[in-house]
């Protein structure tokens, strides 16, 4: 190897060491540009940061940029890739929409980004912002956006006292069709206590002529402001962002658009100056607690007649328009004859688009400490009326409480000193049940036999009732059945009559009753007339009932009937024994016939 060759080799090595790492790094550019460098105050500027690389970058961090002079929307990110000879080139664009915060020359600071260890910067850009035109009354309308889209801020008082309610209304006045309307800047209202009365969620426009042109006017926000100190106070402007949609062609009429494409717009109102006066010292009542507005007072006590030591609730209610949160508490001093505890305060806020107000109710517990007619003195409340510009004092009428009875002992411990919400601080099971007079031992009802006995008795009773009813119905409708059913009982009844005659020794009556009993029984069972029955027919019926084997019974029946006839018609004398024998025979015959009939 010669020395020249060795030198050449060394040079190649060093070239490789110096050049190759550089060649390995992608070529990256970082630039910034704006769509305009002169703009009106209400018009946005579009800033585009472009990162372009000859190779695909695995990670691109977010660039750092100072945009404090602008309201910022975005960025919108767009990536573009290009494949060339196997390598991928990348371009990323970040587009910001900037609304100038003020007029004059505003600077978009240099943006920086670190890629592959290298810090890249853009150049600062200066934007010149001019004030937009606002059409003054009498001025001819123009196509300028400022003349057709603006915020109108109005205060109901330009001069107000400290604590007086000042209602400020922000209306959006426009002659375009608007989209994407949203609050962009909300004033801080420094120097005021603020209560929102109305905040629009959607545009609700009303037609109104401003100058010579009809506008859509939509209330955006209404606030009640209460100045906290005197002096000239400035209410900062409100701003909303919106976009005017693309129309594609020009139209004529009320909502003419002068643009043929969608345009983002920031609309900012104007600041309002309010001169705040201090409350006059002259004539200020001693009990004045800072209430400014118009108020009334209502005082009531319940009950009016109580025993000594029982509580009386005294309610003092102050109601009115104004910042009632700052009205203080109506002063009630010691009341003679009562023990008084700290009041419970309830505020009822009333918010409407017409203003802010409400009521404050103080509830005192008073305990009469002696009997008699006790007086709750008048309660007074003072406020400053900004309309009349004088202090006013409203006063309630005194209230009489009739307290009776004796003074209770240790009354103080019965009531807490103040009312507070009850909070749970622990948990446990509930306490045991108290002592009892009796403990149950019967168990459940469905395990009790009596329950099922009663339950079973009901359908059985019904069944019995149905049977009895049917029987009664048949007795009424079926004469033969009725006679058959009654035959025995009738026979017994007649035999009893016979027995009665026997006891009296009335022979003819006795035999007559026996004869009737036997004949009637046979006639009833056969459903024939008893009067027409002959002895033979009776014998035939008896034989039919008892069967052929009862000849003796039939013979006895015939013999007894003959004896009865003989005794009745012949009037022959009968001894008591004979009659008793006849009676017993008759009983046996009836029994035997009845058994025979039943068997059949």
């Amino acid at each position, binding site marked *: 190897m010669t020395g020249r060759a060795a030198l050449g080799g060394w040079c190649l090595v060093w070239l490789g060491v110096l050049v190759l790492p550089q060649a390995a790094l992608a070529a990256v550019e970082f630039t910034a540009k704006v769509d305009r460098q002169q703009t009106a105050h209400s018009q946005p500027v579009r800033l585009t940061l472009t990162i372009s690389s000859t190779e695909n970058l695995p990670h691109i961090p977010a660039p750092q940029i100072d945009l404090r002079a602008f309201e910022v929307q975005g960025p919108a990110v767009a990536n573009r890739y290009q494949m060339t000879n196997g390598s991928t080139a990348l371009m990323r664009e970040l587009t910001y929409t900037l609304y100038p915060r003020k007029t004059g020359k505003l600077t978009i600071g240099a943006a920086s980004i670190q890629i592959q260890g290298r810090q890249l910067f853009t150049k600062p850009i200066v934007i010149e912002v001019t004030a937009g035109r606002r059409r003054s009354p009498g001025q001819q309308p123009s196509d300028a956006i400022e003349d057709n889209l603006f915020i109108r801020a109005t205060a109901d008082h330009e001069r107000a006292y400290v604590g007086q309610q000042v209602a400020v209304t922000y209306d959006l006045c426009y002659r375009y069709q608007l989209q994407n309307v949203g609050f962009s800047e909300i004033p801080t209202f420094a120097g005021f206590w603020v209560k929102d009365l109305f905040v629009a969620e959607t545009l609700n426009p009303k037609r109104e002529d401003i100058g010579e042109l009809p506008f859509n006017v939509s209330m955006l926000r209404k606030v009640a402001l209460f100045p906290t100190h005197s002096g000239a106070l400035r209410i900062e402007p409100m701003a909303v962002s919106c976009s005017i949609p693309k129309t594609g062609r020009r139209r004529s009429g009320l909502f003419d658009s002068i643009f043929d494409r969608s345009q983002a717009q920031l609309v900012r109102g104007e600041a309002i100056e309010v001169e705040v006066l201090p409350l006059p010292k002259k004539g200020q009542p001693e009990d004045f607690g800072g209430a400014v507005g118009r108020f009334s007072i209502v005082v009531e006590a319940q009950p009016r007649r109580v025993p000594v030591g029982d509580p009386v609730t005294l309610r003092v209610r102050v109601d009115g328009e104004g910042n009632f949160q700052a009205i203080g508490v109506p002063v009630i001093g010691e009341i003679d004859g009562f023990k008084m505890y700290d009041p419970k305060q309830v505020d009822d806020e009333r918010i409407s688009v017409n203003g802010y107000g409400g009521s404050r109710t103080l509830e005192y517990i008073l305990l009469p400490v002696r009997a008699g007619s006790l007086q709750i003195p008048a309660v007074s409340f003072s406020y400053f009326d900004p309309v009349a510009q004088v202090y006013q004092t409203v006063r309630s009428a005194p209230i009489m409480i009739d307290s009776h009875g004796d003074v209770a002992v240790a009354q103080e411990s019965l009531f807490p000193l103040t009312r507070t919400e009850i909070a749970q601080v622990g*948990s446990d099971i*509930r306490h045991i049940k108290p002592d009892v007079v009796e403990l149950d031992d019967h168990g459940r009802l469905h395990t009790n036999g009596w329950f099922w006995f009663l339950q079973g008795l009901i359908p059985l009773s019904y069944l019995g*009732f149905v049977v009895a009813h049917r029987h009664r119905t048949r007795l009424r409708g079926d004469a033969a059945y009725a006679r058959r059913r009654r035959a025995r009982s009738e026979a017994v009844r007649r035999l009893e009559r016979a027995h009665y005659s026997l006891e009296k020794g009335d022979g003819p009556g006795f035999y007559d009753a026996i004869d009737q009993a036997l004949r009637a029984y046979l006639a009833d069972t056969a459903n024939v007339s008893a009067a027409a029955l002959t002895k033979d027919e009776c014998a035939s019926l008896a034989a039919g009932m008892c069967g052929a084997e009862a000849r003796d019974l039939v013979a006895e029946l015939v013999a007894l009937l003959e004896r009865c006839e003989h005794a009745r018609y012949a009037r022959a004398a009968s001894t008591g024994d004979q009659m008793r024998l006849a009676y017993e025979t008759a009983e046996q015959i009836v029994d035997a016939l009845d058994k025979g009939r039943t068997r059949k």
Partner: protein
Amino acid sequence: MIRTRVLIWVCVAGICVASVGVAVARSAAVSAFAEANVLYRAGDYDAARAAYLEITEMGLIDYRLFYNFGNACFKSNRIGEAIVWYERAQRLKPRDEDVRANLRFARHIKKDRQPSVDDKAVWRGLSRLYMYPTEDELCVAFLLLSLILFGVAVWRLRHDLDTGRTWRRLFRLSCALTVVAGVYLGARIYQLESAIDAVITVEQAKARSGPDPEQTVNFIVHEGTTVHVERLEGDWSLVRLPSGLGGWVSSADLTEI
């Protein structure tokens, strides 16, 4: 005749003696209950628990006794046992606020989360509605409706009101209500008698795959957990959780509600 009279008098005397005996036993139970309450109020919960146990062994079935017994168990750190007695009290008096509150509290502080199926709100509401009346109330309702039906039927029969539309409707309504009450009562009694629920009363119980201590442990349940007993085999009970998980647990580790 004389023998019959003697028999009647013996019966009357026996009934009187039995009634007096029952009255005396009840009076003793009431006194024992008051004494147990005194022990509880004094903070001697173990003694109170023993006293309540003694009363329950007399065969008394009273929700106040069961509730106080549950309280004594709870205060003696026997959560499982407390839940058993609260459950028993609740079955007798399901709408008592104290019983419900203490049962809820005891379930809340036990170790296992109360196993529950993922029921929908509507189903839970219907279930509560179904369980709202007690079995005793259903019995009374059934009896009253049966009596009303009987009265309507008898009245209708007596006055031959077969063609009266109002009476027919009234009769049908009474019939329908009685049948519904009867079916409802029957379903509740069947559910009560057929379902066996129990509570784990030991600190932890192992549920195994079979009724044998050598079998694999399927899962472990802790004191106070309510389980459904499906089957008994020797000293082992096959229990199932509402989630469907089942296993054999030693019967000594649980107490039937």
